[in-house]
């Protein structure tokens, strides 16, 4: 998603709310939940969701609710990161109570720059959770554009980032085969239609396009994680124990 979205703070606030409601649950955030979360009327939510849907930031289904698209997710993650880092700052450094810090963070998060928040994070020692115990999303400003659906990528190695499927059977099956965020998979065969063939844990797995669409991935970061996935037909190095 190369084009930059100019968003109002209330739009950002909505994305954040959907993110919070949806977070990890891989499900649709209903209109009612969002209304409750933001303290507004159902009708306002519907109106805003339509607007965000037009901007390609959410997938909106009338009468059901919305899920973030990858572009929406990227923005929401960023806002959430700002929010939680600011809370950390307001509570730990300024000594403001959690309720008040939440309110203030809500205000500042829409205006503070990426650079400023990265500096703040560094100053705070890159905390991993907010005062409420929730995880602070990592900054991935350099590769935020790289998150895409598994169904859209070319052959190669990718790390699973998010699981957005809403089908319990699918989530359960993906879990039991180990296809969960953090895992690196190798896409062996993909086409514009029909299922994909991926390989992971020495196993070939066929994924329907609908399932592949629900997995958000980013290209495998070669040097980052200490534990690099050994590759099946790779160099002789790999896995001596120890």
């Amino acid at each position, binding site marked *: 998603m190369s084009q930059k979205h100019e968003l109002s703070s209330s739009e950002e606030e909505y994305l954040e709310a959907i993110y919070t409601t949806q977070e990890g649950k891989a499900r649709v955030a209903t209109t009612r939940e969002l209304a409750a979360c933001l303290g507004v009327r159902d009708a306002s939510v519907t109106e805003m969701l339509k607007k965000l849907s037009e901007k390609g930031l959410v997938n909106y289904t009338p009468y059901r609710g919305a899920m973030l698209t990858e572009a929406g997710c990227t923005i929401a993650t960023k806002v959430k990161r700002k929010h939680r880092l600011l809370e950390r700052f307001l509570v730990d450094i300024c000594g403001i109570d959690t309720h008040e810090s939440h309110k203030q963070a809500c205000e500042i998060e829409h205006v503070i720059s990426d650079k400023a928040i990265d500096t703040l994070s560094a100053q705070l020692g890159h905390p991993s959770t907010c005062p409420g115990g929730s995880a602070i999303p990592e900054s991935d400003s350099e590769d935020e554009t790289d998150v895409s659906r598994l169904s859209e990528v070319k052959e190669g190695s990718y790390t699973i980032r998010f699981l957005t499927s809403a089908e319990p059977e699918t989530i359960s099956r993906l879990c039991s085969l180990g296809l969960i965020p953090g895992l690196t998979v190798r896409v062996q065969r993909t086409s514009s239609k029909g299922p994909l063939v991926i390989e992971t844990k020495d196993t070939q797995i066929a994924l329907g396009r609908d*399932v592949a669409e629900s997995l958000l991935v980013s290209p495998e970061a070669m040097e980052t994680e200490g534990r690099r996935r050994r590759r099946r037909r790779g160099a002789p190095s790999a896995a001596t124990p120890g």
Partner: protein
Amino acid sequence: MHETTVTRNAPKRIALIGNPSAGKSAMFSQMTGVNVIISNIPQTTVMVQQGLSHLDEHNVMVYDLPGVYSITAVTEDEAASKDFLLSTPIDAVLDIVDATRLERNLYLTLQLLELGLPVVVALNQVDLLKTLDLDIDVADLERELGVQVVPTIATQGEGVHTALETAYHYADQPSKRTHRQVSYDDHVERALAAIIPLLPETSIPKRGFAVRLLGGDKDFESRVDERTLARVREFRDDVERAHGEEVAVTIARGQHSTADLIASAVLVRRVHKPTLGEKFGEVSTRPRTGYPLLFALVGGMLALIFFVGGYLSSHITSFFEGTVFPPLYGAVNAQVANPFITSAVHSTLLALAAALAIAVPYILIFFIFLAILEDVGYLSRVALLLDRQAHVIGLHGRSIIPLLFGYGCSVPAIMATRALPTRKERIITTALITLIPCSARTAIILGVAATYAGIPYALAIYLISFVLIIAVGRLLRSTVPGRTAGLVLEIPLIRRPALVPILKKTWLRMKEFLYIAVPLLVVGSIVFGWLELTGLSRFVEAPMAPITVGILGLPAFTAICLIYGVLRKEMAVEMLAIASGTFIFSAVMTPVQIFVFCLVVTLYVPCIATFGVIARELNARWAVGIAIFTIVLALIVGGIAFRVLTFAW
């Protein structure tokens, strides 16, 4: 091994469990032999097979549980495995671990250990490790897991005896070792520590219990009171908030990481060049080569069944009618005066001959062929290749496998729908299976339509049924409530086929036909003989005439044939011969009538055995619904065909 156990009356019970395609059925076949009587466990868990095995002079009852990837059940098959493990007292669980996919298989092993089950690991397919340039240190694996590990090659029977023996003596292990525990992340561990004191005393270790509860396992949630559950939900919310994902995913990550650690510690990899099997696997899934191969295989299979099956079928029939029956009839007629008894004997012989003429050439060949494809690991590739096409009829690739079975016999095909994840998929697949020409219907299409009306008519019936399957599939896709779940399918390695498991699988599927259908065929045949003898069958013709003559344009005597076709499809033809008084159908019916008759018989109401299976697998309402639907469909399609063809004549 030393003989220390006191012989007891009850045989020890050993359950086999493992991932699908880990070689579990091969292991079961080796332990129980092909000719040992295997029975389904009564009551609800019909999917669990049991067989008696022998170890020295002891009897061992071996249970073959449907393959699972984890304790979290998605399909009914998997639910059966889980139910069995949680509710049946067993002496040992033999966990079949696919050595070639060690890390992924250890995930299940860790879950079994967590539930405190008496696990012995059979490290299977160790022969393939060499071809894949892998090596596993068995002693290290034993140490890492804290359980006994026996390397096996189930397809060749190697290590099977030792595995059985080790499992048999599980209880005699000198000192219980501590099993490998999964280490979860801090949030989960903290939640577990808080949940454990709340749990009641059960046979399941509290840590394992707590993990299942936290993960939201319904089967465990029902075992604790509401208050505990409310607390657990709070902890679950905490973890989910901290991780921003479902707690089940976080737990799965912990289990997979531990499996990964173990696998990395015991597995040695060397430079690997793809083997012949892998190259074939590659060819079979690449669209450019995969589709031609699939067409060649399916076409070859159908051709084999058409030509070889048709040839065998006609020879078996003529052998019975020419060589076996005349002396038997003569003997019976000479000995017995009562016409009801002679009629019953005649009918029984006819029915058995018909069953043989269908079962051996058509169903047997078909199921052997399918079992080979399944055993080498090809069937999942079919599911992969046809996933996109299956979407047209509202299904996913994995439904293709039961549909394929449907060309053999609907009964095992419908049983195979248990491996589908959602009820909607099961219903659609089951309904479509009843429209697929099974072996009995193939016998009709070949034996009657092709012979007496012409080959184009026979092909037209196949084409019409195929078009109807697509049309009905689309209709059901939008009308059956519920949803389907996307395709997530493991593709197994291509293996050399092994004789014993193939025979076993074929036998299990044949058994459904032999035990359910053949008795019905015999009884139906006897009753029909008596009706003929007493002249009662004429009474059916008049009330049925509006349908047979009016709608379908068939001779009135076909009424009784259609009714008997319900008992067994191919019986309609046999009855046609009896009711019309000749085997040369072209003498009494026009080609159009023969075509319409065969078309209707192919489509209308599933045979009684199929009906029974649908009622058992889905419910009686669906069975009745599908039956009515197919009757109406057959009448409409038959009526249209009759009118179009008569008009065009």
